[in-house]
């Protein structure tokens, strides 16, 4: 019986993954061909195989392709981060954006830009590789702060979210103060970036982000069993022999690192990490070995679609992708909220 249903699940998983990959591929071409400079899908294919004009090559390979790859990576990272956070807090409203982890990372990056903008040219290779580290430090600090402040003989899920909202507001206020002390150009850059934007996308960002995703997402998948056990509640989990606190801390670190790296490259994109795991759970049920891979694909797809919408909706005004994600997913969040007790 068990094996049969597991086989069914695996089959369902492969069907869903296959359909999502097709959707991503279609949207990938739509995204590549739309924008201020239109390139027909046929020309996109021709250019990819090396037969485009030099202008088409420049637009595709230097601007659009890195931005799209970055969107895919960030979407996947935030989605998995959200899935882990929801698993370890047993709270379906947890999300790195709502909990203030994104803002913590953002604050660290803005402080980094504020104090070291003289030393590194913005967008220089060194700055690009240091930014995720700064963001990670900020994200870890935020997570630590939230965890400590929410601790009251254990961490209660609702208190965690409330404390997260408060910490988020505090970091935002500090961000505002530092931002206004910047010169106008960095100010504008920081504002756009903080609302969530795949800014200055180039291959360096992709290279800086790729190792984080390639290492952390498989580790998360490997730990799926622990997440499943934790979802049953702390008592059951320790009864089954999982050392809850240490596993929880490790998974928390992975989630925070994924969020931090994503924020460094994509700014504060809220709600994505909240909504995607829900969609994945709807499709595949509560087991994390299914939720995580589906979240990777749904997150990547959602962010790429949002990015395409943002670039084209009010062209030539480019709307930061974080705004589109918020408008698309906030109603879903409210809907979830209305259903929870």
């Amino acid at each position, binding site marked *: 019986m068990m094996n049969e249903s597991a086989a069914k699940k695996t089959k369902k998983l492969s069907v869903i993954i296959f359909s999502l990959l097709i959707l991503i591929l279609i949207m990938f071409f739509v995204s590549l061909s739309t924008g201020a400079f239109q390139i027909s899908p046929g020309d996109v294919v021709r250019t990819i195989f090396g037969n485009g004009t030099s202008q088409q090559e420049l637009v595709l390979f230097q601007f659009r392709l890195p931005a799209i790859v970055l969107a895919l990576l960030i979407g996947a990272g935030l989605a998995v981060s959200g899935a882990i956070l929801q698993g370890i807090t047993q709270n379906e409203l947890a999300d790195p954006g709502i909990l203030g982890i994104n803002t913590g990372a953002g604050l660290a990056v803005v402080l980094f830009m504020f104090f070291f903008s003289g030393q590194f040219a913005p967008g220089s290779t060194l700055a690009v590789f240091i930014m995720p580290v700064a963001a990670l430090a900020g994200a870890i600090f935020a997570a630590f702060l939230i965890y400590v402040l929410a601790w009251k003989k254990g961490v*209660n899920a609702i208190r965690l979210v409330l404390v997260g909202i408060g910490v988020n*507001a505090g970091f935002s206020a500090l961000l505002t103060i530092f931002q206004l002390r910047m010169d106008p150009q960095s100010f504008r850059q920081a504002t756009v970036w903080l609302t969530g934007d795949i800014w200055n996308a180039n291959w360096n960002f992709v290279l800086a982000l790729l190792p984080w995703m390639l290492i952390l997402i498989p580790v998360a998948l490997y730990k799926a069993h622990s997440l499943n056990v934790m979802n049953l509640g702390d008592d059951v989990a320790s009864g089954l022999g999982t050392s809850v606190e240490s596993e929880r801390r490790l998974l928390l670190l992975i989630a925070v690192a994924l969020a931090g790296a994503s924020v460094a490259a994509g700014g504060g994109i809220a709600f994505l990490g909240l909504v995607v795991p829900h969609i994945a759970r709807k499709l595949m049920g509560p087991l994390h070995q299914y939720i995580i891979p589906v979240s990777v694909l749904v997150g990547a797809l959602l962010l790429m679609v949002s990015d395409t919408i943002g670039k084209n909706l009010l062209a030539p005004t480019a709307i930061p992708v974080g705004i589109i994600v*918020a408008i698309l997913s906030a*109603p879903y969040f409210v809907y979830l909220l209305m259903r929870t007790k």
Partner: protein
Amino acid sequence: MREFIHHSSMSKVIINILAVLAIIFSIGVSVSYGATNIDLNTVWQAVFHFNPDLTSHQIIQELRLPRALSAALVGASLAVSGAIMQGMTRNPLASPSIMGVTDGAALALVMVLAFVPAVTTAGLVSSSFIGAGLAVALVFMVGSFSPGGLTPVKLALAGVAIATMLRSITSIFSLHFNLEREMGFWLAGGLSGTNWTSVNILLISGVVGLLIAVGISKSITVLSLGEDMATGLGQNNGIIKLFGVVAVLVLTGAAVSVAGVVGFVGLIVPHIVRFIVGTDYRWIVPTSILFGALLLVLADVVSRLINAPFETPVGAITSLIGVPFFLYLARSSGGGK
């Protein structure tokens, strides 16, 4: 009856008188401090024996006095809005900024600025009311559609979600219509653009809103004991809530149209006030007026001091003061469930 022992009428009166004195003093400090410091004696002269030939008198009359008065009125309006909301919903986290009311007003403002650039001040203020009303309606809709109503936590979360969404739409408008510089400082909350017109707007809306608030304060006390109890005592809760919502919209709408999004004043002031004067809204409302005014006048002074000669948005200052308070409330009220 414990309240009576701890909060005798005499001590409440004394606290309110002290608050009035503190407000007068801090307005004096606010007016005298600035790019050129003007001593308190000159401030006194400029207010009561105005001489248009003196530059310092003109600075005070045209720039600093309206600013300090606006700060006081905005603070009072937001604090009373918060008190009404907390009393009516019996929810310790209810307040204009947490429930997205301020962001609704902001959205309406940016839309008007985008489509009708030549809008009059009155037009701006009324659009701000409408936007605030829209956000309140949204949050209440969420509340009425969820089984079991809005718990404090749900309210905070729904507010955050709705506020984020409204702010996102605001950003789209400001980016598309190149209003982001105007909106940037304004969204962070600030009093630098205030003048006598702002004071007049705030005074008119303030008198209307505060009168309603004082008028229904007794009924809010009854309502805060629970709706069933209030109905049992023969109170028409629908009418009271309607008046309460109107007061909140008028007060918050005017405050946002003048000072932008100033967070946490409406959340923390009623709590501090309740701690001092007890649970009777006939005392909470007037004391909130005074404490709200005091808080924002002081926050405005700090916002000019902290990074002089540049201004820091006053909303950032009130957030920094309000966050520890919010965290305390989150630990104590959200903890049990």
